[in-house]
């Protein structure tokens, strides 16, 4: 037989790495937010915000996670994620570290629009 061998597809592929590559990730959103709302740095990931969150009751929205993702530079898809927040401010009432959560959400939103590539 001659001619090109037809490529056989077995249905296998390489999964995308789940790992957070901190050195490769851009931290520009984090830098902007940190300056715009310094209480961003005070989060201790206790999850009180997420537990009281109405949006979190119906979706997988969690401000605790959003803060961490911004910190690690994992900003892909975040712009859509934070639109789930209705800015009701319950999280701000319960935060034990005094994080200004509502402004934080607004600043993240702004930074994602202007700061991200």
């Amino acid at each position, binding site marked *: 037989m001659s001619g090109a061998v037809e490529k056989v597809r077995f249905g296998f592929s390489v999964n995308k790495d789940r790992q*957070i590559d901190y*050195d490769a990730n851009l931290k520009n959103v984090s830098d902007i937010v940190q300056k715009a709302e*310094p209480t961003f740095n005070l989060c201790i990931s206790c999850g009180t915000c997420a537990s009281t969150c109405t949006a979190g009751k119906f979706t997988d929205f969690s401000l605790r996670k959003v803060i961490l993702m911004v910190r690690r530079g994992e900003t892909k898809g975040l712009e859509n994620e934070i639109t789930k927040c209705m800015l009701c401010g319950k999280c701000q009432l319960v935060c034990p570290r005094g994080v200004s959560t509502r402004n934080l959400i607004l600043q993240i939103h702004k930074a994602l629009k202007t700061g991200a590539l």
Partner: protein
Amino acid sequence: MNRKIAVIGGGAAGLEASSALTSLGFRVVLVEKEDETGGHIKNWHALFPNRRPGVEVLDALRSKLGSDVELFSGKTVTEIKPVNDRFELSSADGWKTEADAVLLTTGFSLFNARKKEEYGYGIYDNVITSAELESAFSTGKIAMKSGEQPKRIGFVHCVGSRDEKVGNIYCSKVCCVTAVKQAIEIKQYLPDCEVFCFYMDMRMFGRHYEELYKEAQEKYYIQFIRGRLSESTEDHTGKIILKVEDTLLGKPLKIGVDMLVLMVGMEPAEITKNLGTQLGLVSDSDRFLVSTDQHISANISEIPGLFFAGTCTGPKNIADTLADARSAALAIAGYFDNNHNKS
């Protein structure tokens, strides 16, 4: 004649107990294995939570020693023998003394970071221990082996603590707050250096510790990542690559640092273990010495006239060690008041 108490170990506990015992009317023989008293504090540049110089506390403790304290340094006690309600003590070099009661203030050793081989201590150039960083603070020179200033430093909590693989399941208590203190100091020396702390739990148990943690976040932008280091590797540029799970995001995380600081925990000192074995004292699975009652008589051993203070009975910070030492002095006074060993 006043009763004589032998205090074994001239660290924080031994110094404080010696002065407390003399103020209660006892004569004290303080035996220190090194040439100088002070124990670990003499190697510690600054203390948590307020970053005061270690030497300040040491000077205060030493200055309280009156003429009723007879100090023998450079003597390692190897044998303590109960003889007719008294004790005979002897050292490795043949020195001997007698006492009416003995207080063990033999303290702790730092965990040998080489045992945690996967972290690269003794293998990679820029992996150091918290104790070595403390010495670097004393000289004021924070640099990598190459002489360059590090741009990013990682602190690993719980090295040799809470780890069955090295035989230590207990928490050493002081390393979390020490990491926070040292992280802040790094930022004071090198404001442009990024600092990361990798922790399992932040155990900010003492007064003003939580405030220090908050200060680290608020004022110094120190980042805390909840995840325990599995291993470190050195890349071709000499950078140390860390792999942890960011457990709060549920994802593995890879990060390169220029310098890695291992927060080494506490283990019972060799002399604590040796004297414990020689005296037939019970030690726990953690190898620290065991009191007759953890709450009610923490300073009292199973042997009448033999007492404990400080970190020979488990990890403690300085304030708790000093309180424990004063408590031991009172326990010794109580022992003689109860007409034990009338003479």
